[in-house]
């Protein structure tokens, strides 16, 4: 089995809203897979379908070789889940919740539990009602990371963590990665986190996957911004596929160009006589923002392939 998760054309409707609209998602065994998308894109819904908490209206899913709806109980022994918004029982202490969830899953690594509590600087004796948001999140994280499971489903696990704790989280995920046999699906809005941790990622919008691939693949989809001073008007540059947002005035041009179209675009420029040239390297951030922004996404539909 090489895919820990594979979803095909998943559809999930809540009354008249379509939360998932033919979503495809493949997470390979052993990888840390980033899961991004604007608010309401359907990330949490996807994860709940994967957990068998919601029943998909269409499409197929396989999770660790099983059906998440039919085989939920058996599959849950091999996975751990951290919800995006953790609520705890007001009268149970954090330590009790960690132990309970671990035991219900089938076991907890005691050494790792102690180690994580220390690194996350979490007091396990506090009652659920007296934890801050970040500390509630830590309780769920420790419970998940201290379990010996194959798959971690993390829904915005670092929302509410301070930068120091965010760093501890990254280290912990790196350790998982080094072990090589743990698969992580990590939904997140934090681009730097995804860049630092993920082997591959999927971006979704309006319940559909719009990009998927390795970071390098996606970098390939990013655009370089170019600003050049030319001796002549650059004929045909605007018609070149892969050139966007072209503005020309007084012999200067500015445009963004897809990585794939960089070479032909530069030829056009040299043909027009380059006097000066400034180029901004591509950033993933720009790619993400492009997918997050609905208006821009609509005008640049060809970018999404």
């Amino acid at each position, binding site marked *: 089995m090489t895919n820990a998760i594979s979803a095909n054309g998943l559809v999930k409707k809540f009354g008249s809203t379509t939360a998932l609209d033919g979503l495809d998602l493949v997470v390979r065994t052993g990888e840390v897979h980033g899961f991004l998308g604007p608010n309401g894109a359907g990330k949490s819904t996807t994860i*709940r379908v994967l*957990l068998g908490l919601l029943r998909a209206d269409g499409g197929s899913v396989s999770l660790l070789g099983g059906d998440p709806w039919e085989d*939920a109980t058996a599959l849950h022994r091999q996975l751990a*889940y951290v*919800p995006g918004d953790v609520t705890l029982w007001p*009268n149970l202490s954090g330590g009790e919740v960690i132990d309970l*969830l671990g035991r*219900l*899953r*089938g076991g907890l690594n005691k050494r790792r539990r102690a180690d994580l509590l220390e690194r996350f600087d979490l007091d396990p004796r506090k009652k659920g009602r007296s934890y801050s948001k970040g500390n509630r999140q830590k309780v769920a994280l420790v419970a998940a990371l201290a379990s010996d499971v194959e798959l971690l489903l993390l829904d915005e696990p670092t929302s509410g963590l301070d930068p120091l704790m965010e760093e501890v989280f990254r280290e912990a995920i790196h350790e998982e990665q080094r072990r090589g046999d743990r698969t992580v699906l990590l939904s997140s809005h934090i681009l730097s986190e995804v860049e630092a941790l993920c082997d591959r990622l999927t971006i979704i919008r309006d319940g559909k996957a719009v990009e998927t691939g390795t970071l390098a693949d996606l970098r390939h989809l990013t655009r370089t911004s170019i600003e050049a001073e030319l001796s002549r008007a650059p004929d045909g540059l605007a018609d070149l596929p892969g050139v966007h947002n072209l503005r020309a005035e007084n012999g200067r041009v500015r445009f963004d160009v897809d990585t794939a179209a960089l070479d032909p675009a530069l030829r056009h420029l040299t043909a027009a006589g380059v006097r000066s040239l400034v180029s901004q390297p591509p950033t993933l951030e720009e790619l993400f923002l492009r997918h997050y922004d609905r208006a821009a996404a609509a005008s640049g539909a060809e970018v999404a392939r």
Partner: protein
Amino acid sequence: MNGLTGTGKLIRLILRRDRVLMPLWVLFIGLVPISYVASINELFPTAAARQQYADASAHNAGFVALYGRLFGSSLAELVAWRAGFIPIVIGLLSILTVIRHTRTEEEAGRRELLGATVVGRHAPLGAALIATFGANLVLGGLLAVGMIGQGLPTAGSLTFGLEFTAIGWMFAAIGAVAAQLTSGAGSARGTAITALGATYVFRIVGDISGMSNGPLAWMTWLSPIGWVQRMRPYRDDVIWPVALAAGLTIVLVVAAVALSGRRDVGAGLLPPRLGPASASPRLRTPLALSWRLHRGLLAGWVAGFAALGVVLGYLAADIGDLVHDAPEMEDVFARLGGASGLIDSYLAGLMGFFGLIAGAYAIQATLKMRDEETSGRAEPVLGTAVGRLRWVASHFVFSLLGPAATLAAAGLAMGLTHGLNTGNVGREVPRVLAGALVQLPAVWVLAGTAILIFGLLPRFAAASWGALVICLVFGLVGSALGLDQWVLDISPFTHLPHLPGGEVAATPVLWLLVVAVGLAGVGLAALRRRDIPTA
């Protein structure tokens, strides 16, 4: 900026958020007693018929427990007496409204959102209280106007309206204090409702004892509900208990304001304690978790039922003495089977009452699952190797066995005290206990209904309370109203044998069990197929 800045805006916000709910309950409760006028008039058209009904009712312990004492037999008095359970409902709604707009808001963090705008420190509390006071004023006004419109005496109708308003004000203030004491909306509701329950219990014990000139009649005076019922609309029309009610309201509001000045937003006055750093070895199953979640509630119910059982069992022998105290009632008592028959019907009547209240617990315990689900606490548990049915079972066990424990506690306590009183423990304990436990099949039908709605229509899970209201209205009240038998039969409690004293019949009990299992089965099947939503 003073402490009440922005109160007006907040009141408008409350009225807007409650624009459906609040008018609904104000109208409904304000107008329900009006319907009693016609129905009592129709059932008991002559003074003689009313007199006969009043004589029987005034000595029926179940009725006295539910509605309070009855002194006269005029149409107006019968109407006011029949409305005697409504103060509990008004108290409950006032508590819930105040806490909903204070503590719940804080818990959800919306209070902070407001606190950062131009809103005084006491404004949310003030706004919630003013809105609830206003609602109760309208309710009382509606009631008075409606009653006058039905041709009942003006002075009595005004007293009647004032009685209901006063009840609402006192419990709104109790809700306000509870909201300051604890650190969560849930425990604030629990505290205030416990206070409501205690005042109800004091009223019941005092009134039942008073019915036979017993030694505990003074207990009515421990209860604010007892105070305002002393106004006795259409009979005495006394107003001074309102002063008592107003005094209590003022004291409580001042206390709430003082308390709210002393604590931080979001925190309670009672500081949170630390728990264990790791779970005990027993905390490893869903059942162990739900034991932690249900045990407080269970202990409270068992203790309450046991305490009530002790007192009511103690009073049973006094009821038997009524036969000698009131020779003019000989006919009525003879029909009920003399002194021992009277005691048995008193005990059996109370058992029906305990059964209904245990039904409330069954529904409350079942709805805990809905609370777990919407709060997002069910999700992490269901995300582990715990299947849905196992999760439901871990809670449902408390819906089934919890009421069994409470009814057993009440039955044992009543049997023991009554047996000790009459020197025959060996005879009374099993009889009374059987009377208590025979209520269970009907209670389980209510639990089954709750799980059915939770499984099929989770959003409407709270409608399960409607089933209890139906039992209350059609069962206990309906027989007095002379409703058709098929209507009475809707309530599972109608089918139960009246024990002790009545005939033992196994068939209806078995049928009720079948119905309960069927309802629960459909609910569970639906639950296995549905989504587990949050919110």
